[in-house]
């Protein structure tokens, strides 16, 4: 049964909480920006055995972190109201999650302690003393056909549970591959605009590109520049001079 395997993967909020608590930070936008690179590093380590849906969850969180990090890296970068909202939402959710998260004590620890106490109250089974032989009480409308219908419904629900692969798979694009692709293109042209890089690409690819750029930023192999508000972001290899 697959549930055992699947439930072991913690989600992006759990990972973020772990990173923040390891650094003993409070949950603020600044501390989220601080752990963004570690978070992206972690995504790279997610192997093939991680369900596509989980990877997608991580990428969605990563996109928000990237926004947040961009704001810190590029103070001029203006965020839309919606983007500001997304960042704020991540912060609020993380604070709420911390109250219940297994890793951070809180409610989960209280429940765990109650559970471990093993002070269990016991009840009597339904109509303990009334279970006598000879009673037969079907519903008037209980027929072989109603049984067959009920059975078909139950089986259909069970079949629907089987995880469908492939659906989210398109979202997963190797981060490593993107980084290599970026480096090649940087050697061809000195400066690339982000708009050019992301032209004709799917939303998920744009996210991955963002991650790649951030990763390179961290390694100092590129620098980014935004000349005006709402303007395009220029990405260039470190050590070269802008021609513009």
């Amino acid at each position, binding site marked *: *049964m697959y549930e055992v395997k699947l439930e072991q993967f913690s989600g992006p909020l759990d990972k973020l909480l772990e990173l923040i608590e390891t650094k003993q930070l409070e949950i603020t936008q600044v501390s989220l920006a601080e752990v963004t690179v570690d978070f992206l590093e972690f995504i790279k380590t997610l192997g093939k055995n991680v369900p596509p849906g989980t990877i997608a969850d991580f990428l969605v969180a990563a996109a928000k972190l990237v926004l947040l990090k961009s704001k810190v890296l590029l103070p001029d970068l203006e965020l839309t109201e919606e983007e500001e909202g997304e960042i704020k939402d991540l912060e609020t959710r993380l604070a709420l999650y911390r109250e219940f998260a297994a890793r951070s004590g809180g409610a989960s620890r209280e429940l765990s302690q109650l559970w471990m106490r093993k002070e269990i109250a*016991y009840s*009597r*089974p*339904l*109509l*303990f*003393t*009334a*279970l006598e032989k*000879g*009673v*037969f*009480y*079907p*519903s008037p409308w*209980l*027929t*072989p*056909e*109603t*049984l*067959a219908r*009920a*059975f*078909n*419904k*139950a*089986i259909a*629900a*069970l*079949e629907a*549970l089987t995880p469908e692969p492939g659906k989210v798979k398109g979202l997963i694009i190797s981060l490593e591959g993107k980084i290599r692709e970026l480096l090649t293109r940087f050697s061809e042209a000195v400066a690339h605009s982000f708009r050019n890089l992301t032209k004709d690409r799917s939303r998920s690819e744009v996210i991955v590109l963002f991650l790649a750029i951030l990763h390179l930023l961290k390694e100092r192999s590129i620098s980014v520049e935004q000349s005006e508000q709402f303007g395009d972001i220029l990405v260039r290899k470190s050590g070269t001079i802008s021609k513009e």
Partner: protein
Amino acid sequence: MEKESLDAKLEAILFIYGEPLSLQTAAKILQVSLEEIRAARAVLEKRLLGSGSGLTLLTHGENMQLVTKPAFAQFTEAILKSELQEELTPAALETLSIIAYAGLVSRSIIDYIRGVNSSFILRSLLIRGLIERSLDPGHGNAYRYAPSFELLRHFGLSRFEELPDFSRLNGLLQKLTPGSS
């Protein structure tokens, strides 16, 4: 909690046991002497009488049993009747259909197929006489469930294989619950 008195502990185990329990067994479970159990029984009997409880202690020689006060015996019938008169819920129907199409099936398989715990519903189907249970050989105290003969008769069938679309549906069940019986 160590200070809880012995009569309270005795009451708790009698509540769970349901049937008449001997002084000896009670003494063994509560890890006290026979004299202590006898004394606790007297205390419990007196407390139930004095506190306005709805329960009372029956004593037959060395055995004792926790039951409702005689005046309340009528409620058993009323409760049973109200339980039986309830329509079968969709959940009960679903559980019954799994048992009927499986023929003989363990509780863990039923729970797996339904995705929820079925113990209450199984008990209720048993009380209605729609299913029967037997110990699952080699699985400790676990039970297996089968449709009752009364149900078959009610349907006017001679065997469950005559249920609509039986072989296909039974086959689906076998396929979806691999390695189980």
